């Protein structure tokens, strides 16, 4: 066993030694004050746990703080960045208010983006429909009934041209939530920028592209892991050299959490994915300090307020210390964990939907107190459908109220030093390291995915939670307590017309494009795909510029790499 294999357990051991106090103050308070009080008032004291199965005491004291608290916290903008990655945080610049949007046709989505920009949104975020997410065109047999339903439909560069009509790609930053075909959509975005004469050096944005979490949680893949990982490597090397403001991956815990994990599982599995990508970049011959600064993250903010804040603080500290200690990163930028946050869709209820505004507010506050760089707030009607204009505006206004009325953005890391929050941050860190150690002993994250271990861990947590809800041990207001008769609300419906319009546009493209050029570009792309040392992105850009379609491109990979069947989970 070499030294790096020992890293997690060694760190874990030293973390466990950081608290040597015996909690005398708590113990005597409990004996002399709390217990007699409970006895006289006949209070039943139930055990309290958070989603991560961490048992919570009634109160925390200074004896719960680490002996090394000063070094473990640092100051804002100083190592290990527990308190925030920038010295001025929101006093310098508020988080980016980035509302995930996309539905129906590219025209519908272009209108929604402009609507959000006009109401003060500061970054774009595109949602694609299910066929697009699986690399299928709108005219695929499987796409029938799904076009434009869960996001915007994109089959060719033409669709992207319409989505971004009248939007300056040199001025906005765009996040695209797409994974399996991320490299194709990136090629389209770059091709569009070039057509609009925006140099790639100025193109700012993020593509999710995190395929590991697809196998773990969201289940949107096309090929076996190795094929997708090669495409991420190609984006990594291409963007490092040519598009330095483009985040070619957003390592995501959001979906892991929505699939049913606990907060600490989200933290651990996401960061384990992140370390894998670091290993991959190093293996591709890149200096860690050249590419690590462009890795970005994406977390969930769920309803247990302090647990979420502790998770985000722990995430920053873990990333910085591991990058420095294990990977030898020297540049400060490499150590900074920049992340986007979205409030939790799972916590929203179908019942009494207006209550969801309150849930989203609590979750958004946790994200801000956790130091997020950008934020999406869910709309109250999202347990029903994609959000209506009015619902999405309330969600954006929620962020604006937090930012400009509440005072939450006035002081950096205002919960820093809280006995409870610091203790919980330490707990999240230790439990995450237990998972890193276990995953390493299983032979790394790819093995942990292929054996179904991570998926089973998540399914087990989700089932346990469901049982607690069924028994009423956990409460969802309006769903399993304070239940009322329900009345349907008015929701956004995607009409069949979206599919018809998309089919027509694709037919027109196929009729008018230069077929010989398409064939040539696809042939060159096929050869590149067969050569693992070639970088695919330039070939993809050529193909999309010739209006080769998404599915024509992904089909080449389907022939070369085949598909992937997941292990049995239940």
């Amino acid at each position, binding site marked *: 066993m070499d030294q790096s294999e020992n890293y997690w357990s060694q760190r874990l051991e030293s973390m466990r030694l950081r608290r040597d106090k015996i909690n005398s103050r708590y113990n005597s308070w409990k004996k002399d004050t709390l217990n007699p009080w409970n006895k006289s008032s006949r209070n039943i004291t139930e055990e309290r746990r958070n989603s991560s199965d961490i048992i919570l005491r009634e109160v925390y004291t200074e004896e719960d703080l680490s002996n090394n608290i000063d070094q473990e916290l640092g100051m804002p903008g100083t190592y290990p960045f527990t308190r925030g990655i920038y010295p001025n945080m929101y006093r310098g610049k508020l988080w980016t208010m980035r509302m995930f949007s996309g539905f129906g046709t590219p025209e519908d989505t272009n209108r929604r983006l402009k609507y959000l920009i006009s109401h003060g949104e500061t970054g774009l975020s595109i949602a694609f429909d299910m066929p697009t997410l*699986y690399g299928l065109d709108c005219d695929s047999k*499987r796409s*029938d009934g799904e076009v434009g339903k869960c996001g915007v439909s994109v089959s060719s560069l033409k669709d992207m041209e319409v989505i971004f009509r009248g939007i300056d790609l040199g001025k906005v930053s765009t996040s695209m939530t797409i994974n399996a075909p991320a490299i194709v959509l990136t090629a389209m975005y770059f091709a569009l920028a070039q057509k609009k004469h925006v140099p790639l050096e100025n193109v700012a944005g993020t593509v999710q592209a995190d395929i590991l979490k697809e196998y773990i949680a969201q289940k949107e893949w096309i090929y076996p892991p190795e094929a997708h990982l090669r495409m991420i490597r190609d984006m990594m090397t291409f963007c490092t050299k040519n598009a330095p403001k483009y985040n070619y991956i957003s390592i995501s815990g959001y979906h892991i959490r929505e699939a*049913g994990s606990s907060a600490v599982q989200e933290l651990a599995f996401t960061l384990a994915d992140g370390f894998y990508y670091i290993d991959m970049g190093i293996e591709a011959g890149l200096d860690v300090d050249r590419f690590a600064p462009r890795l970005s993250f994406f977390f969930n903010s769920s309803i247990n307020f302090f647990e979420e804040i502790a998770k985000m603080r722990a995430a920053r500290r873990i990333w910085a210390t591991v990058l420095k200690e294990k990977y030898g990163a020297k540049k400060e930028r490499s150590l900074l964990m920049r992340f986007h946050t979205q409030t939790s869709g799972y916590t929203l209820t*179908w019942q009494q939907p207006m209550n969801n505004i309150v849930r989203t507010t609590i979750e958004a506050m946790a994200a801000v107190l956790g130091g997020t760089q950008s934020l999406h707030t869910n709309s109250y009607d999202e*347990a029903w459908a994609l959000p209506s204009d009015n619902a999405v505006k309330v969600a954006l206004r929620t962020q604006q109220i937090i930012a400009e009325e509440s005072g939450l953005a006035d002081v950096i890391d205002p919960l820093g030093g809280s006995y409870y929050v610091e203790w919980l941050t330490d707990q999240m860190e230790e439990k995450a390291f237990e998972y890193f150690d276990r995953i390493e002993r299983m032979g790394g994250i790819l093995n942990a995915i292929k054996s179904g271990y991570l998926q089973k861990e998540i399914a087990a947590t989700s*089932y346990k939670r*469901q049982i607690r809800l069924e028994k009423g041990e956990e409460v969802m207001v309006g769903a399993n307590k304070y239940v009322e008769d329900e009345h349907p609300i008015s929701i956004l419906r995607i009409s069949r017309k979206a599919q018809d319009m998309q089919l027509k546009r694709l037919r027109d493209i196929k009729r008018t494009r230069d077929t010989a050029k398409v064939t040539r570009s696809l042939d060159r792309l096929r050869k590149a795909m067969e050569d693992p040392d070639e970088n695919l992105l330039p070939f993809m850009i050529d193909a999309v510029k010739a209006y080769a379609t998404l599915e024509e491109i992904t089909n080449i990979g389907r022939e070369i790499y085949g598909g992937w069947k997941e292990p049995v989970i*239940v």
Partner: protein
Amino acid sequence: MVAGKSQSLFKDRPIKVLLAKPGIDGHDRGMFVLAKSFRDAGMDVLYAGLLPTPEEVVDTAVNEDVDVIALSLMNGAHLTVFKKVADLMKKRGITDIAIVGGGTIPDQDRPKLARMGITGNYGPGTPISTIVEHVKRRAEEARKRKLGLN
């Protein structure tokens, strides 16, 4: 449901359910919860895996001789995709397998699905016990047809 009567129906073979998401939709959290819950309720459970086509769903249901197909979609395509499953069943003249549905299905769509013979159509927050009871009831109807009891 009369316990004695249903016991005799399922005496030789417990209720058999096929869980399937027939559209392009990987949101499988609910599927796994239901699979475990149906098993806890004594049922035989099959999961169709990711992205089965409507044809694959019907083929599996017939080959495995299930009592109930339990469909789920979170992607808003239920009116098109659930219908394809129901149409295929009708085309093949299969009457001894019941279809139930669930997912993010707006209230307005429930009568339409019911007319296709797809019942339940429960949304988020539905107690598992409600779903289990409904599947049992539909399984009973299907099993009676299998046994030629009506």
